[in-house]
Structures are given as C-alpha cells and as structure tokens.
C-alpha cells in the first residue's frame, strides 16, 4: 500500500514533545517531516534523557519521538540560513511550531510572513496557554498545564494532594489534536486550494479533555470530589476503582451492587441498595476493600466473570506482554542506529488491515541539510 500522506512535506520548528509527537504521527502516515534545528544544540529534546538512556549523542527519548524524520540545521537569525529555510517553506505543505508566542514573529516566520512565501500553507501553532492573556508567556510545560487546568484534582483519593497524571498528557494530546486539525485542513485545501492557520494550546486541550467534568460543573456549580477510597473517576459511583486482593489488584468498573454481591457474597454489602451507590460510595468501597483482600485475583475474576461483570486484573508491562492480546496487537517495531537495535511502539492506527511501520531512526542534527539544499537547487522537493 502506498502511504496515504505520501507527497506531503512538513517543516517541524518544534522541540520536546507536543509538536514533535504530531510530526511523528504524520511521518508514520507517510508525510515527509523535516525538523528545522538550530546548529550546535538542535531540538533541546536531544539532551533530555530519561533514566540516563542514550543512543548516540542524543537520548533514547529523542529517538523515540523523532524517528522517521529528517533534520535540517539552520540558524534562524542568520540571513543566509533563512534564505534556504524560506525556500523550504515555499515547497512545504505544513509548518508546525511550538515556540512561545512572539518568537516566530521576531524572526518573521509568523503566519502572515510565511503565507507570503507559500499562500496555501497550513500553519500550526502550539502554545502553552494561548496567545493572549496573562499566562501567554508562562512556560508551556506539561505538569504546569495539568496544575492550572484543574486536571490534578481528578486523580488520586479525596484526601491526597492534587495528583498529576504520571505522563505528559497535555503535550501528547495537544500534539494529537494538532494532527486532527492539520489533516482536516489538508482536506479543505484539496477542495478549495486554501491553506489555514491552526492554533492550539496545552491548556485548551486539557480543558477539552475534561469536558465531561466542566459541563457537569457548569450544571451543578459544585466541584467534583474524588472518592476517598480507591478513586477511579470522581463522577462515578461504587464500586468503580482498583482494589487490592490477596495476591495482586483488580479493577472493578460500573455494575449494579446487587449483581456484584451475587458474585462476591459480602454480608456487609447487603445493607446497601443501588440508591446508595453514589451518595455512600466511600462506605461501600471501604467494605469492598476489606472483602477483596481476602481472596486472590484469580478467584475474584472467576466469580465475577460468571456473571459477565466488568472486571479485569491490574497488570504491569511485563505481565501484559505475556498475554495473547498484547501479542495479537503487534504493537512493537524496531529501528537501528548504527549497530544498536532499538525496540519501540508503532502507530496505533490501522488502515485496510495494514500497520504503519517504519525502521528509519531519528536523524543526527543537520544530517539532511546538504541533501535538502541540493534538492532545492535541483527543484526535487
């Protein structure tokens, strides 16, 4: 199958995760993604490692986010380098940047300027908090946007500190939403020839992510409160949550209490009816906590599966990898850097039963600068 976005060229003036994870998805779907990086250091993500894992002069983290891309080194403050960058823009379909507001304006690569070079450009801006208002110059860092957006009050139990998601949800989701809007803008461009300006921010993304909670809040004028016991979702009633068993943990989703009790036989639980499931959820969940600890995960799963109740074991990655479901998903793929083989995950979308796999590693800083310059001269882009 020919890759669906073949022929689309994307210039990525982005660092860290939000912009680059958008570029990665588009690359996997077939677009040519060229990172425009400053000489010397490049994307700051190159030097950001987790667990001190390095592949070459760049971190494993950088390689994970930037595989399947090219790199063009350019100093955006140099007239000569800018000359080539503008030629690249003239050949590009999409620009993605995640600089703080004002940076692209200062070097005359804002939408209005870029549009003069390429009238049908799809110009995508990712900021932390939008371009207006008192927060526009705050650093658009993931944990901070989680803190400000109210999201930290969704996870953990009632008496815990506000608890952030332990992953970069603001960055990741904003990048993914950028992909949606870029694709929609490409569709409009096919029909009309028009480009687009697309603006996204981590904060707006995280508010949208909580749309069920915000809408409920607007209706009730009451903040949602996390359950005191094994909170799974602040708007849901007992038994929703994760419970410790004699030898592990189980996740128990929505189900009528009576049906649950037919399966697990708790004398204490009999005192409650479905009407109590939200109001008295903490009491009920405390009883369930005492009950589930008395037997093993397998026993509870067997008992509850008999009644088709929504329950699953809690697994870590090692345990997950042993399951036929994980193996059936074929989520893993490999790429090589020199003679180092690196395993990573694939694009989660399947089209016509095909996976989108790529074994192209992340580029070295400026690896494709000369090649791209000569392509520009030969008008091959």
């Amino acid at each position, binding site marked *: 199958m020919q890759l669906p*976005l073949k022929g689309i060229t994307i210039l990525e003036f982005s660092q860290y995760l939000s912009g680059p994870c958008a570029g990665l998805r588009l690359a996997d779907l077939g677009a040519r993604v060229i990172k425009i990086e400053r000489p010397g250091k490049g994307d700051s993500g190159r030097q950001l490692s987790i667990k001190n894992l390095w592949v070459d002069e760049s971190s494993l983290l950088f390689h*994970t986010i930037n595989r399947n891309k090219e790199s063009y080194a350019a100093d955006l403050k140099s007239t000569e380098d800018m000359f080539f960058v503008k030629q690249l823009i003239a050949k590009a379909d999409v620009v993605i940047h995640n600089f703080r507001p004002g940076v692209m304006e200062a070097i005359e690569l804002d939408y209005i300027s870029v549009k003069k070079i390429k009238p049908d450009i799809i110009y995508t801006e990712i900021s932390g908090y939008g371009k207006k208002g*008192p927060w526009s110059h705050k650093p658009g860092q993931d*944990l901070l946007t989680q*803190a*400000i957006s*109210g*999201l*930290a009050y*969704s*996870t953990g139990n009632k008496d815990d500190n*506000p*608890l*952030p998601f*332990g*992953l970069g*949800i603001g960055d*990741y989701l904003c990048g993914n*939403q950028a*992909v949606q809007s870029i*694709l*929609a803008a490409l569709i409009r461009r096919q029909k*009309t020839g*028009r480009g687009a*300006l*697309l*603006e996204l921010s981590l*904060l*707006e993304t995280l508010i949208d*992510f909580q749309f*069920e909670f915000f809408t409920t809040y*607007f*209706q009730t004028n009451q903040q949602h409160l996390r359950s005191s016991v094994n909170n*799974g*979702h*602040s*708007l*849901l009633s007992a038994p929703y*949550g994760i419970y410790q068993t004699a030898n592990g*943990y189980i*996740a*128990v*989703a929505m189900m009528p209490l009576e049906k649950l009790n037919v399966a697990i036989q708790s004398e204490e639980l009999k005192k409650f009816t479905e009407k109590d499931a*939200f109001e008295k959820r903490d009491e009920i969940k405390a009883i369930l906590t005492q009950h589930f600890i008395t037997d093993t995960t397998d026993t509870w799963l067997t008992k509850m599966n008999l009644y088709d109740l*929504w329950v*699953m074991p809690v697994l*870590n990655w*090692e345990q997950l990898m042993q*399951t036929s*479901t*994980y193996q059936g998903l074929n*989520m*893993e793929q490999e790429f090589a850097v020199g003679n180092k083989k690196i395993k*990573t*995950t694939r694009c*989660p*979308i399947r*089209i*016509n*039963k095909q996976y989108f796999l790529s074994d192209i590693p992340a580029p070295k800083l400026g690896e494709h600068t000369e090649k791209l310059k000569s392509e520009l001269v030969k008008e091959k882009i």
Partner: protein
Amino acid sequence: MKLLEDILVLDFSQFLSGPSASLRLADMGARVIKIERPVTGDICRGLYVSDAVVDGESTIFHAINRNKESYQADIKNADDLKEIKNLIKKADVMIHNFRPGVMERVGLSYDAVKALNPQLVYACINGYGDEGGWKDKPGQDLLLQAVSGITFLSGNKEDNPTPMGVAVADILAGTHLVQGILTALFNRFTTGEGALIEVSMLGSLLDFQFEVLTCFYNDGHELPQRSAVNNGHAYIGAPYGIYKTTEGYLALAMGDIPHLGRLLGCDVLLSYINASDWFDKRDEIKLILKDHLSLKSALEWLAILEPADIWCAEVLDYDMLMKQDGYKVLEMEQEVSIGNKFLKTTRCPIRVDGQILKSGKGAPSLGEHTTAIRKEFDL
C-alpha cells in the same frame, strides 16, 4: 468554509470513545447523524453521574453529543436496515464501537458496506484488538487502564496502582480514530477509494505510553518506580511534582536543585550539585522541599520563583480557575440549546484561521431527526 464541510458521518457508536470522535468531526464542520436504537438509544443517555441531569438525560450525554442529529433505527429490523443501507450509500464516514462480530452479524461488516459504497471510510474502535484472549471483552476505560500498565505511573510509590481519573483510553482512541478517518478522507480524494480504519483502546494507551514503554523495552525490562514523595512522573527526578503550602498547592517541574535552594532560602539543597543525584536521590530531595515549601503560601513562593524563570505554577481547582483572566481570555465556554433550555459546556479546543469553533446546537433527542432525514435522503 469549515474544514470538514460537506462530509456526512453516520455514528453507530455509544458511550464516549466513538462519540468523542464524531463530536470533533462535527466541530470541524462535518454533519454527524447518530444512528440509535429505539427506546434506549445511545446507552449514555441514561448514564447518570453525580445526579446531574438535563431534560431527563445525563449531562455527560449532552456534552458528548452536541452538534449532532439523531436517527432512530433498529439494525436488527429488516425494514430499518434497508433504510440504513440507503443512508450508508450517501455517507462519507461511518463509525461504530461494537464488540467484534456485532456488525458482521447484521450484515454491516466493512466488506458488506463497501459493496454498497466503495468510497466509504469505515471506522471502528474496539477494546483489545481483534485477536487474542480478550477480544470479546467490553472496551471499558478503567479496565483498559488496568491491563495497560498505565496505573503504575501515577500516584506515589506506596500507593495502590492509580488509574487516571479521566476516561483517557476512550478519549485517546477517539482521537486516533479521527486521525485515521481524516487520513483516509484525504487519500480518497486522489484514489477515489474508501478505507477500513481500526483503532483499539489498548493500542491507544500503549501509544500514549510510547516514551516510557520504549525505555522499558530497551533497558532490560525494568518496571517503572514511582517517586515516594509527591510523584509527578516516574522517570523524572526532583523537584518534579505537586507540593502543599500553607495556602494552596505549588507545581514544580524540572529545575536546578542548588539554584532552587538559593531562591527558596533552603540551604540543605545547596549540596546537591551533582545533576545525576536529582534523579537518584529524588525522594530525599523532595522530602526536604516538601518540608520547606510547607512554610509559606503558594503565592508567596510563586512571587520568588516566577521572576527567576523557574517552571512553576499554582495548582487550581475549577472554582479558582474560573476566576483567572488567563482562563476567561480563552473563551472555552459555550452555550448550546436543548429544546427551549440552554446548557453551558466547553468548545472545540482548536482555532482555525483565527476563529474559535463554536456551535449552538445541543444534543438531539432520540430520533429527533428520523423523519426529516428519511425525507431528505429519500430512504
């Protein structure tokens, strides 16, 4: 012109994963028709949470299904199915999130539908993929989080596995589905052919964990270790996390520990000059910070840290957030009409050509548009 003007989407899905995908398509300009079974419709209509109800239906349903139409039909009834098939012939996209096998049994598998409309983009979400032991299990968010390993990333070291408190599997699968749908629509313009798009909620949660999973795959399968103190990210060193102060909470992201010590007047931190200790000794460092930050209010600390360009923020709840100019300026709120009532909700987070995308159209009542659609499409 809206980005997705003239795109017709038939949404057979229920709850959140599929409907969140069609909501985004609607906001970008597509016309979305929910195909709902008689009597109950989308089960989400009756999913009451925390007693918030609008017009006898759940607030959550209204949030997820605004800007859509409703066509009532029973896919197990031959006459209804005939009309649905006629509608499918006119559609650009159809979405479902039934368990594997359901659409096949009623004759609406991709192959069957492709014969009716070769240009159709057929998109489906399932929980666990279509192979393996769990393929027939319900695709429920908490259960997907439980098996995906993601519950070992949030919360502190000694806590139970902690799920993320928002339906992240549903929303990410819906987001990835939209990406697949739009990719196929883009490609259709040149090939003239539709496509089958498949996303699993488990695959979406694995993709969300792609950075840390890649770390795990390549470091000899070391499982994540959450920080014992104010964990913010299992793989990031001190000071990353949320701290209690005398008044309010303070979020601190990455930063240089001795520099932070000088700014905060916390001399004990000055000795941590070796950057690798910020990870290796993070619990020790964070415990010192936790004690020190409990001496003043969040706003007092911010007044010191923000001018020094330290990555920090006050932690806000909804009451606090609503009062901020930084929130108001985003104009995230919109009102939609339901009958003669109005419901306040949030808008699509994307701005296009400088405009925010709003729509005042509330969620439809069950079958509200059946007659009109039947007439319009001559079913």
